[in-house]
Structure formats: C-alpha cells, structure tokens
C-alpha cells in the first residue's frame, strides 16, 4: 500500500516537472516572438516616411481613438493579472469572472482596431497605397492577430477551467496565457510609441 502511495506522489511530481518545462518552452517562444516583432518594427521604421503619394501619419491617426484603445488593452492586462492572483488563491469562480472581463476588454480592443482599419480602407488608404501603409497595416495587424488568437485561446481555457477546476495542466495553461497577454501588452506599448505617438508628433 505504501508503495502505491509513494508511486502516486512520484507521478504527481513528474507531472508538475513536465508542466513547468512547458512554461520554459513558452518563454523561448516569446523570445522568438519578440524577434518577429523586432523585424516588423525595423521594417516599419525604415518605411515610416515612405508615403509615396499616400497620406502621412499625421493625416491618419486619431489621437483620441488610439489613446482609448491603449487604455483598454492596458486595463485588460491588469485584469488578467487579477485573474492570476485568484488562481493562486484557488478561487475558480472569480478567476473565470476576471478572465471574462479580460476577454471582453481584449475584444473591445480588437473592435477598435477593426474600426480604425476599416475607416482607413473606406477612405481609400489601403496596404497598396504606400510602403508606409504596408508597414503600418502589417505591424499593427500582426499584433491584432496575436490578440485575436489569444481571445479564442482564452475562451477555450475558460471552458476547460469551468469543467475541470484547477489541475496542474489547467494551472500551467493559465500561467501561459497570462504571460502571453502581458507580452502583447508590452508589444503594444512599443507600437503606441513608435507608430502612433512619434507618428502624430
């Protein structure tokens, strides 16, 4: 009997070790994602003033809109932090509540971005207008895609946690999505500065 018990804890430890290794890998993925955004940023910076016959960044960006957008995403990062705190306390219900709030804020952010993009396109300013706009749509759009994927993933996780509660696996998954979400927040701060702030200055 004793043997079986000790085996069981062994397995449990093994499992936890396995889960923590997955978080290590995710950190490395984030490193590669930083480089991906780095390359996009570099491209954007090179092409920043290549307006060709198209509009300039001053013509395009709406200070109010992108400030609200930024505020929404920063808040979602904060609520995702709150969710992690609830996880550490072991409160499934409030964790889910905060995750839903985070997802809603994330969706609002994506909504803002879609609104911004579709506004530009309806005025005839497309990716094909100038190198500057190609760079802008690609950099900001790649971030937007990351956020959208994160949303789908987060919804999936909410369902999984609701069904299974806290297990080493769900806890690991929650830590990873929270890492991912903060990371996207950090990337946005760079976009906010390099694309929008410097753009309207």
């Amino acid at each position, binding site marked *: 009997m004793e043997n079986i018990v000790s085996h069981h804890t062994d397995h449990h430890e093994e499992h936890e070790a396995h889960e923590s*290794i997955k978080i290590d890998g995710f950190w490395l993925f984030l490193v590669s994602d930083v480089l991906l955004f780095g390359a996009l940023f570099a491209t954007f910076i090179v*092409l920043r003033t*290549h307006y060709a016959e*198209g509009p300039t960044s001053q013509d395009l960006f709406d200070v109010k809109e992108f400030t609200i957008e930024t505020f929404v995403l920063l808040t979602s990062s904060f609520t995702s932090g709150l969710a992690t705190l609830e996880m550490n306390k072991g409160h499934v219900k409030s964790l889910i509540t905060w995750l839903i709030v985070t997802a809603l804020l994330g969706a609002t952010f994506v909504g803002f971005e879609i609104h911004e993009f579709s506004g530009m396109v309806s005025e005839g300013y497309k*990716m*094909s207008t100038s*190198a500057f706009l190609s760079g802008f749509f*690609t950099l900001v759009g790649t971030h937007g895609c990351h956020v959208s994927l994160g949303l789908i993933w987060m919804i999936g996780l909410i369902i999984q946690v609701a069904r299974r509660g806290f297990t080493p696996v769900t806890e690991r998954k929650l830590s990873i999505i929270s890492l991912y979400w903060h990371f996207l927040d950090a990337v946005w701060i760079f976009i906010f500065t390099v694309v929008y702030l410097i753009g309207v200055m």
Partner: protein
Amino acid sequence: MEPKFKISHFFIHGDPLILGADVSIGIATVMIIFVLTYFKKWKWLWKEWLTTVDHKKIGIMYVIAALLMLFRGGVDALLMRTQLALPNLKVLLSEHYNEIFTTHGTIMILFMAMPLIFAMMNIVIPLQIGARDVAYPFLNAISFWLFFFGAMLLNLSFVIGGSPNAGWVGYPPLSELQFNPGPGENFYVLAIQISGIGSLATGINFLVTILKMRTKGMRLMDMPLFTWSVLATSILIIAAFPVITVTMLLLFLDRFAGAHFFTMTHGGDPMMYINLFWIWGHPEVYIVILPAFGIFSEVTSVFSKKVTFGYTSMVVSMMLISFYAYFTWVHHFFTMGAGAGVNTFFAVSTMIIAIPTGVKVFNWLLTMYQGRIRLTEPMLWTIAFIPCFAIGGATGVMLSIAPADYQYHNSYFLIAHFHQVLIGGTVFGMFAGLTYWWPKMFGFKLNETLGRWAFWLWNIGFYACFMPQYALGFMGMTRRIYTYGWDMGWAPLNLISSIGAVIMGIAFLFQVWEIAYSVKYGERDTTGDPWDGHTLEWSLPSPAPKYNFAVLPEVHGRDAWWKTKEAKERGDYEEKKQELEPIHYPKNSGIPFILSVFFFIAGFGFTFEWVWMGALGLLGVAICLIVRSFQYDTDYYISVDEIKETEAALRGEV
C-alpha cells in the same frame, strides 16, 4: 474578386521533362498505394509512423525525407551541369534552367541540409543526455510533418503551376508580381513559411530538452560535444527563424495583397529584403554547419580512442560562432555600395568568425595526435572533411576581404566556396553522423566496402566538380547563367566540372546500394556498442527501446559510458540495483499529421490565391489546435512488466 489563377494555370504542358515527371510521379503513387494495400500495411503505417511521437522514429523519417530531397536536388544539379558542360548547349531553356537552380538551392538548404540535421538531433540528443524523450514529443511530430508538407509543396511546383525561378534567395523586385506573375514564387514563399514554423519549434524543443532534461549528474560542461553543437544551433534557430518568417510574410503580402515593402514603386525598398534575408541567411549557414562540427568531434574522439582535445575551447568557439553569426550578414552584399565604414566592419567581423573555426580544426588534429586512428567509414568522412573545410574556410576568408570580394562576388569563385563548405562540411558531416549512428538507429552496420567506394567517388567527384569553378571565377564566369560562348575559354573547365558532378551522382548510387545491401547482409549489432563508443547512447541496445532508458543513468563527468566501461574492466564497477518504475510516456497522436495536411491545403490555396481554399486550410489548422487543447488524456504509463519484457527481449539476444 476574380481569382487570379484558373485551372488552366494548373498543369504545365509542352515540356517533355515535366511530362515525364508527371507520369513517373503518377506511376510511383499508384505503386505505393498498391504495395501498401496488397501487404495490408496501411494500419501499420498509420500506427507506427504517421502518428508516432517517438523521437527515434521521427529522426528516421527525417533521414528518409532528406535523402529523397538529396536525390531531387542532385538531379537538379546534374541537369544544370549537363546544360553547362559545353558552350551553347540547348538541353535546358533559360526559364527551365532558372527554375532548376532555384529549386536546387532551396531544396538543398532547407529540405535536405536542415532535415538531415534535425534527423541527427532527434536520433541522438535524448540518448546522449540520458533522457527518455525530447521536451515536447507532440510538438516534435508537428515539426516533422510541417517540414515534410512544406517540402512537398515546393516539390509540387515542378509539375503543377510552375517552379519559382528567382534564385533560392528570391531577391525582389525580380521575385515581385511585376516581374514574376506566376504562382512559382508563391510556392517558394509558402513552402519556406510552413517548414519554417516547424524548424522554429524544433529549435525551442531541443534547447529546452538539453537545458532541462539531462540525466542526473550531467553538468553543462560534461555534455558530449554534439549536444553542445545542437545547443548552439538551437539558439541560432530561435534567433534567426522569426526573421525569415517576417521576410516571407512581407514578400507574400507584396504579391498577394499589393503591399509595397519591396516593390520598385510607391516607396518600397528592395534592399530591405536583402538585409532581412541574410540576417536569417547567415545564421542559417551556421545552423547547418555547427551540428556537423559536433559530429566530427564525437567521431574523431571515438575513432582515435582519445578524449577530445581542448574541450573548453571547442565549447567556447561554438558559442562564439553562434554569437558572431549575427554580425556578418552584410558580407553577402558588399557590392551593394554601403559606406566604406559599414563594409569594413562586416569584413572584419567575418574574418573574426573564422578564428574559432580555425581553432576547432587544430583541436580535431590534436585529438587524433597520439591516439590510435581507426579508418572506419565515419572517420574517413571526418578526415576528408578537414582539408576540404580548411580550403573552403580559407576561400571564405578571402571572400571576406571586401575589396577583393568586388571581384569574387556572384562569380563561380563564390559558388565553389559555398559548395565546398556545405558539401565538405555539412554533407560530409551528416554522412559521418549517419554511418556512425546507423547501427544505433537500425541495429546493423553499413557495409564498409561499398561505403569506401561511395567515399572515394564522392571525394574525387567533389574536387573535379568544384576546384575548376574557383578558376572559372577568375575567368569572369558569373553564376546563374544558363549558357555561354566559346570566346571566353570557359569550356574545358566546365566540362571537367560536369564530369565531377556525374561522379558524385554515381557516388550517391553507391550509397543507395550500400544501404540496400546492408539491410540484408549488414553486420548485426548485438552489443549496442559497435564502435567502442564514449557516450551514453552506446550503453543502450541497438535499436534502443521506445523509452530509451529503463533506469535513468547517473553520470560523473565527460565520456560517461567510456568511464563505466573502464570501471567494469578494472572490476571496481558497482551496478546500482534500481527498482524499475512505470514510465510516463506520451500517446501517439494523429493530430500533427492532420494539422500539417491542413497547412498544406492552406499553402496550396494561397499559392494559387484561391482564398476559400486557404481559409479552409487555416480553419482546419485552428480546429486541430482546439481539439488538442481540449485533450487531457495524452499520456500513459508503461508498466513495469512491459519494461521487463522489453529489456529481457533486447538483452536476451546478447
């Protein structure tokens, strides 16, 4: 929007070569289906191979795929050398020649060299560090299948839609819609993109595996040098591949969505592509050479019956190489007219990277010095590598002298240089690795006599093919020309070069014969340690059981298995009797295969710019990922009884 490509773009007609390929692919497919059905092997194929997450089997699949690609790339090479054998030949038309050198380069680097390296990594790393698997076996399977279907996508372009023809570097604006309206460049972009995701995942997977999964007692500085080389390569992969992903994405957006990243008009900047491409491209060169360095270190040590000389130097130089690899990319385009300061900086950084490489060569020599050298096949490849790489490296340093490079650039001198380091370095390295670890993979040795034939033919062919090309560079012959006249005096050397290529082709056939012969008659490896090896993989039976180690070994210092054998000989070896325990093991899964098929569908759809098909493929990918996320029953335990049975069966034969 009216789709740009219609069904009429689909099949290429009018070229007997392509028609022949169409027919032979059709026949081969029918035959494979027939054989599988006749021998009732479908279920076996699915259960044992397509759904496997075992790193050893994935490694073997990499080997098979890579050798097939070596064949394809080799046929491309032979076609090119036939066309260039004499002036004014009309074996290939210009456009066909251009397609062939483009696919030759792309395939050899991305779909031959890369998978061969991944093969070696997969087969050896967990065994060498005393682990039961890689960190993420499921992800590992995804990596393989993404590579495989990426490769298939590129190969498909030969018979459907037309191959890319802007060179393996795909420089815009030549690769842009304006000059290249067909689907060929889309094939190139998407094939690299799909397999690139897999490569990035492999980099992450092996870095974590090496850092986190080493067996008890193995410190970083105790690791075998091959493991170190894979560590360095993985770092390079993680840092370099995101850049090619972005580069290919931007080129695709230019072609698909009318963006202006690299176009001639609307503010696009073609030079940026060239910079981005080589920021990935130069580290990529070291990604494919570092593991070869690791293999040579293992082989020289084992077959000289000595410890590696200057282990610390070896490690330091590999890490230095992987660091400097990021600061040399401009040497691929000194002639782009960057400022004198920029060119000097990159010239010097390129010379600096040669220093650690040179140190490694000296250390290999000293590893052999005062040893006992056994001229087995892996050792032969290693010995051939040293002078070949020394010359190739030396011409590389010559190329780094920026003003001299204005004369070498884009000439056959450059072609000769990089073939010498890639064949003499990577390919010879992988041959050394394959022949060295072959018994571990399959349980039998390769036939030495046939191996020697292949070895000598490869070497003679190599020097005959590429030494004249250095001279042709000095005669002003530029790369990528499909024909030339009698007036420049290039004919005799080109003829010799072509003869050399044919000899290498024959050498490859000898290798195929060697493998086929050895499957039947090769010497069986019953000890698990046919070479008197030094590292942990040789402590296991050949081939190793799926869980690798029944009991995880504890090691003290380098060359763990050698030390164990010595202790046994001295008689002071105490085998610690350890209880067997159930082993945690991942279940097979069909998702990596299915997911990659969907990626293939998406890639194919976007190649022809059929958005519905691309979207369908991506939706399939998303569904696969969601299904996987909801799967919790992904692992199981191998029972103690099963382990005992397996071990008894494996060791029982001894």
